[in-house]
């Protein structure tokens, strides 16, 4: 294909603003899929994605339109996958920015639009859902045009649901999005913008060829990680896998690598040929590091091997997931897992429970900390239980948060952010009614219940997005919880010194409610080092008898006691104390709590 006749583009939108529906209409219109094959939201392959209305894995589909080859590259729609989004965008020259005509711009729209602009993409603004009765296409068009510094008249107005205006969208892609640059005669370079694992064919890389050309059976190499493999098959999605002999500059397609592990072919890496290697990799590769950590334990400790196998399988398809075995005295054997963010954690947990049928106990999430101990260097700590009690210095990750909210809720958002140690950045009016706020916040302050709080304090109107802004020093201490004198590792938490007393008090109060009365008094203490900062007592039970037991009800009474015994077995034994699993989630429930 003539490079001048290729257009590579993606669709960026807030969740539910109609990205998948638009993609479906485009496929229908270009007859890439017959109506019979058509099923809704074709690009979202995983069951989970369909249910949550989000896209986890990007794919690229090639369609034909009026003599042009269009490659539609799907991008993940959430903050946790910003890096993947940025790589997908880097594979394009243009992006459709889709905004709901009733909702207007949301925080995610902004984040993705900025990302697209940073990547030098031509943005084609689209206002969708104009068929809805509550739609305000004029208002939405003005908002989008203001954001892009564009003319509102150039904003396309469509209904992806009914198909109105979709042809014009494709025409605009041809007219406005530039053809790929790239040197067809240079040594070959291709950007890996996503990958997927197939149990029979190994890792399949999704690539955008930038320079030169690749042919089947070429010996290839990645430039950042140095992984070598053969191009077992090249091809593109139409939307089914369609093999071709070669892929050349400007084209988008896939490479079957035969590799057995996605971690060996990282998103953002550059593929070149062994025979004629490029001198420089494509810019922008990052080794994505997880920032949110949590312990995953099987509810039934017998399921540990199943959990290990399940994580191994997930890891094949999710290079961002990291995990290592962990032993908790309270929870037994499990894994400390690292995630890109909260949504990523939630997705992994759900996939483990749904696809692998596991019952899991997930500890309260925490962030990565950098700590400096006397006489030792800096190291990263992923688990409060490993956090040293004496530290010289600590650093914690921060995020730049972007919040869009109706103006009457600005005060509530500011109050929440102040409670969460936020630093005000900027305030701008997107329209007379809607305000865009930026803040810098410690990641630790948003991993628990920030989003819920934000939603409840703004009656659901706020939209929120963030990206990581690096590590900064923090005045942090480790708070331990002791149950009947024994420290419970799974309940330790890292908290800002100013909040330590309050959090400690809330936590022991919550635990007093969660831990059932035992056969003896149980002291619950929160402590910083050896200093107890809060204490509660679960009073011993004074009576526990079956009132009567005669010949007629021996069986029933026996079963009652056997059930009571089975209940004990489900509890975790901490020293002499039986602690129900719910108690370990108490840390989650107090959140940053009490301040709400």
């Amino acid at each position: 294909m003539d490079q001048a006749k290729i257009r590579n583009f993606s669709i960026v939108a807030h969740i539910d603003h109609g990205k998948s529906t638009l993609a479906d209409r485009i496929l229908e219109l270009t007859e890439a899929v017959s109506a019979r094959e058509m099923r809704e939201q074709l690009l979202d392959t995983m069951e989970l994605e369909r249910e949550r209305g989000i896209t986890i894995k990007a794919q690229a589909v090639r369609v034909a339109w009026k003599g042009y080859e269009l490659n539609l590259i799907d991008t993940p729609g959430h903050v946790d996958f910003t890096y993947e989004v940025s790589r997908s965008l880097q594979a394009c020259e243009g992006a459709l920015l889709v905004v709901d005509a009733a909702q207007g711009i949301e925080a995610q729209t902004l984040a993705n639009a900025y990302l697209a602009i940073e990547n030098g993409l031509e943005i084609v603004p689209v206002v969708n859902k104009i068929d809805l009765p509550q739609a305000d296409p004029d208002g939405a068009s003005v908002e989008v045009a203001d954001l892009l510094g564009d003319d509102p008249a150039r904003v396309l107005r469509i209904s992806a649901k009914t198909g109105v205006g979709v042809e014009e969208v494709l025409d605009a892609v041809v007219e406005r999005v530039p053809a790929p640059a790239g040197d067809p005669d240079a040594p070959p370079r291709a950007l890996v913008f996503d990958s997927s694992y197939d149990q029979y064919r190994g890792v399949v890389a999704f690539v955008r060829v930038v320079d030169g050309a690749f042919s089947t059976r070429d010996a290839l190499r990645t430039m950042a990680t140095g992984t070598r493999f053969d191009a077992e098959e090249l091809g593109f999605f139409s939307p089914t896998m369609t093999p071709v002999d070669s892929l050349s500059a400007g084209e988008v397609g896939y490479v079957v690598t035969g590799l057995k592990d996605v971690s060996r072919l990282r998103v953002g890496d550059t593929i070149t040929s062994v025979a004629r290697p490029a001198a420089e990799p494509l810019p922008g590769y990052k080794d994505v590091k997880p920032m949110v950590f949590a312990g995953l334990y099987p509810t039934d400790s017998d399921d540990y091997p199943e959990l290990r196998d399940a994580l191994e399988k997930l890891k094949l398809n999710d290079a961002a997931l990291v995990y290592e075995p962990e032993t908790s005295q309270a929870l037994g054997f499990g894994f400390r897992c690292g995630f890109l963010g909260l949504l990523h954690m939630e997705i992994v947990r759900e996939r483990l429970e749904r696809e692998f049928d596991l019952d899991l106990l997930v500890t309260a999430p925490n962030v990565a900390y950098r700590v400096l101990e006397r006489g030792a260097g800096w190291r990263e700590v992923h688990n409060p239980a490993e956090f040293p009690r004496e530290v010289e210095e600590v650093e914690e990750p921060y995020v730049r948060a972007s919040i869009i909210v109706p103006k009457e809720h600005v005060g509530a958002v500011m109050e929440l952010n102040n409670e969460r140690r936020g630093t005000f950045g900027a305030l701008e009016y997107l329209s007379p009614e809607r305000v865009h706020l930026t803040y810098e916040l410690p990641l630790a302050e948003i991993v628990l219940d920030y989003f819920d709080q934000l939603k409840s304090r703004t009656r659901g109107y706020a939209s929120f997005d963030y990206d990581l802004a690096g590590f900064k020093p923090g005045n942090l201490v480790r708070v331990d919880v002791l149950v009947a004198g024994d420290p419970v590792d799974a309940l330790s938490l890292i908290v800002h010194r100013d909040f330590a007393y309050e959090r400690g008090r809330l936590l022991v109060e919550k635990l007093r409610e969660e831990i059932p009365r035992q056969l003896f008094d149980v002291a619950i203490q929160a402590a910083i080092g050896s200093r107890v900062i809060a204490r509660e007592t679960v009073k011993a039970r004074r009576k526990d008898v079956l009132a009567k037991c005669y010949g007629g009800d021996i069986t029933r009474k026996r079963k009652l006691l056997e059930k009571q015994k089975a209940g004990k077995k489900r509890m975790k034994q901490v020293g002499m104390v039986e602690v129900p699993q719910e108690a370990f989630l108490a840390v989650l429930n107090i959140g940053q709590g009490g301040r709400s």
Partner: protein
Amino acid sequence: MALEMRDRARRRSPRLEAGSEPVSRARHLYVHLPFCARRCGYCDFVTVVGRRGRHAAYVDALLRELELERGLLADEVETVFLGGGTPTFTALSELVRLLEALPRADEVTVEANPETVTPALARTLREAGVTRVSLGAQTFRPELLRVLERVAGPDDVRRAVHHLRDAGFDNISLDLVYGIPGQSPSDLEADLGDALALAPEHLSCYELEAKPGTRFTHAWGAELARQADAMEDYFERVVARLTGAGYRWYETANFCREDAQGRDLRARHNLAYWLGRDYLGLGIGAVSTIENRRWRNTPRLGRYLEALAAGRAPEREVEQLDADVRARERLMLGLRLDEPLPLAGIEHALDPAGLARIERLGLAERAGAALALTTRGRFLGGAVTAELLA
């Protein structure tokens, strides 16, 4: 050769014969008389309200069932217990006909509601061989009796005791209930005082249970839950008051007077349950346990009468009890008593780690080859048993 020997051994020892017929025979007989004038809100026993016309047919059926199961009873029956329902609500002539047809026993107990006890009834029971009467007093506070939907007033209880004494009964038990919605600590103390004033040989004190599905639970369940903390020490109060008055706390919920003549005033029939003995039960809903089988008769009066009228055993729900289950039950039941529980033969029902914890907490002590709960252990008997079960 060896095979032949084993065969012969099996034939000699009927215990080894599969299924068919239990060998050891029950020395304890329970007879269920379900009829009541009305159903109390908190009751979840098998009861039949009204149906006076069926009393004779029911007694016929009981006697026919007895006839059918006679082989399961030992020649010498130690105890007979007539429970209900309200046994004394049964037409008196029918009750007498039943009592006279039942096997003789050392202890024959009849449950009675106070308002049904007349001098004539007391005399008749005595003459029919009844040795012991268990009176459902529940409480002496009129307003609390109303909560329980009991018909009898406090004076009915006193009157009933006097009628029974006059008829010569020297073994009377009173049932008390505590933890009634609205019952204050002084109400409880007053109840215990009123009961002690009647000098019964035996007292059963039960914490009121909100049994699922009863009218009472529907009306009072939430209130009971709310009061649970305030009433937490009622059990301790009951035990302290009664033992202070010279009663022996011989079972979780049962107390008996130390008798001047040296009689053992524990309820012998119930003691059989707690010692894990076999028993035969007759009547609707009645349970029997003999060796490795437990069965419960149909609770439906019509089906029961129909089956026995046709000379058939009533429909039964059968449960197989293996040695392990019986051992667990021995543990559960035995720990309700004040005497140490011999562990011989039930060791495998015990969780050694649980036992160690319970001993460390001072809730049980080992006395040689037996296990005894401490006083606090007895207050926590349910939880302790759950902890000890393997």
